[in-house]
């Protein structure tokens, strides 16, 4: 059976990975290649790397960075930011990208989306929608123009599906960096009106938020950016909690299946009895 994906998002500005809050404040985190190496080791299902400075500066995608991070990435890598023509997609694929995320083209170049889907197959094209809630209504947000557009995100998703997008990456600006959980009603509205996979992002703050969105919606993937940077083994821990009730790939050499967690997902100390038993347990390293 097809598993739900737990997806790590790495936001970069130039060569640095950053933490974003409401798409307006950014905190530098460090080297993107290190973030990606760790996400990989922790058993993430997919990685999305978005360069939020490329389109703003009017430059193309950062090819050298993509080559560098791809070295550490043995899971599918989606790259977005500054992509505006077919040649750039060819170059990105050669650098190690597997899928391309398009955002600005969703506003100004639908022909390009259709053409890209024709050349690379629609499974390669991810349309990224930023949604915002204003006066209790949902709108699409254009982060370059820094304002909302009078389009409904559900209609927009349907439109993008029709012109060739193979997946929708929905980012909720209102909840970005809030750690208060996903917007279930928006996710449901979109997921139920399209026939391509939906990835949701924005609002993840603790493991129970993943459980909630997996239980109440039929998203294909759940993504988070900031949260995965907060604690060691974050992906493995969230999977250890979620895989018990949901179809999730969970096969890291180490797991936290027997562990207890606090609400924030921090591991609690095991009982002395268990720790004593573990002293004598030898785990052989798997050689492929």
């Amino acid at each position, binding site marked *: 059976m097809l598993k739900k994906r737990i997806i790590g998002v790495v936001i970069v500005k130039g060569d640095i990975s950053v933490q974003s809050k409401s798409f307006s404040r950014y905190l530098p985190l460090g080297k993107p290649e290190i973030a990606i190496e760790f996400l990989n080791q922790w058993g993430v299902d*997919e990685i999305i790397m978005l360069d939020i400075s490329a389109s703003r500066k009017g430059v193309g995608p950062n090819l050298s960075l993509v080559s560098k991070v791809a070295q550490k990435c043995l899971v*599918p890598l989606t790259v977005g930011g500054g992509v505006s023509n077919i040649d750039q997609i060819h170059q990105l694929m050669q650098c190690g990208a597997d899928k391309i995320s398009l955002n600005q083209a969703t506003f100004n170049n639908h022909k390009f989306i259709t053409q890209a889907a024709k050349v690379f197959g629609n499974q390669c094209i991810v349309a990224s929608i930023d949604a915002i809630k204003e006066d209790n209504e949902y709108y699409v947000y254009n982060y370059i123009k820094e304002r909302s557009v009078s389009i409904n995100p559900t209609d927009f998703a349907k439109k993008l599906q029709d012109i060739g997008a193979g997946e929708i990456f929905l980012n909720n600006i209102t909840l970005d960096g809030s750690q208060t959980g996903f917007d279930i009603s928006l996710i449901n509205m979109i997921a139920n009106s399209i026939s391509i996979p939906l990835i949701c992002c924005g609002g993840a703050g603790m493991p129970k938020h993943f459980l909630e969105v997996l239980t109440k919606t039929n998203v294909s993937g759940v993504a988070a950016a900031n949260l995965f940077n907060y604690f060691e083994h974050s992906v493995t821990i969230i999977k250890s909690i979620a895989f018990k009730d949901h179809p999730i790939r969970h096969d890291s050499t180490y797991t936290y299946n027997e562990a207890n967690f606090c609400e924030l997902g921090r591991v609690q100390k095991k009982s002395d009895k268990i720790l004593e038993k573990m002293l004598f347990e030898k785990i052989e390293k798997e050689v*492929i």
Partner: protein
Amino acid sequence: MKQPFIVIIDYDVGNVFSVLKALETLGYTNIKISRSISDISSANALILPGVGAFEECINNLHRYNLHSILNDAVLIKKKPILGICVGMQLMADYSEENGKFQGLGWISGKVTKLKLPPHIAIPHVGWNDLAINRESPLFKKHGKAPHFYFDHSYQFLCDKRFVIASCNYTIEVTAAINHHNIFGVQFHPEKSQISGLKLFRSFFDSIELC
């Protein structure tokens, strides 16, 4: 370890870099990304990667005269070849993606759009478990139901005897095929972490070096 000479076929559409990186992770050093006749004819094993639409892929194979070079290497010299995703679909008689296009015709069958119930998302994207139909060199190191990363809207339909593994996406989807020295997988082993590395290792371990 005696290093096999592995050639990853370069025809401008595959994600060659990802495949190369996965093989390097396993410690293979004698790898070339190439479309030259001399490399292909001296290789111990070939990999035909693929991301993209069928039409573009088959056109590029013809543009670089790779169909005849590969026909010779695979059908006459019997070199082991592993096709990945569209690389596997190219081995069919024809594909119905965006029209009707002739394939290499190595394994009799056709590539058609996944016929799914209306509420099921297409493309089929994500990690799915395999049901292995028969023993194969590809899955020697895996447990009972290994999982791999899939990302496709079309699938290879062929005679059951060629299908070595399938997966369930409300319908049965062809996941891996084999006929003599020809292997194909619909999923992406280069993007399937440990499961994928195991598959590559099993495949190259099965090759006799001469």
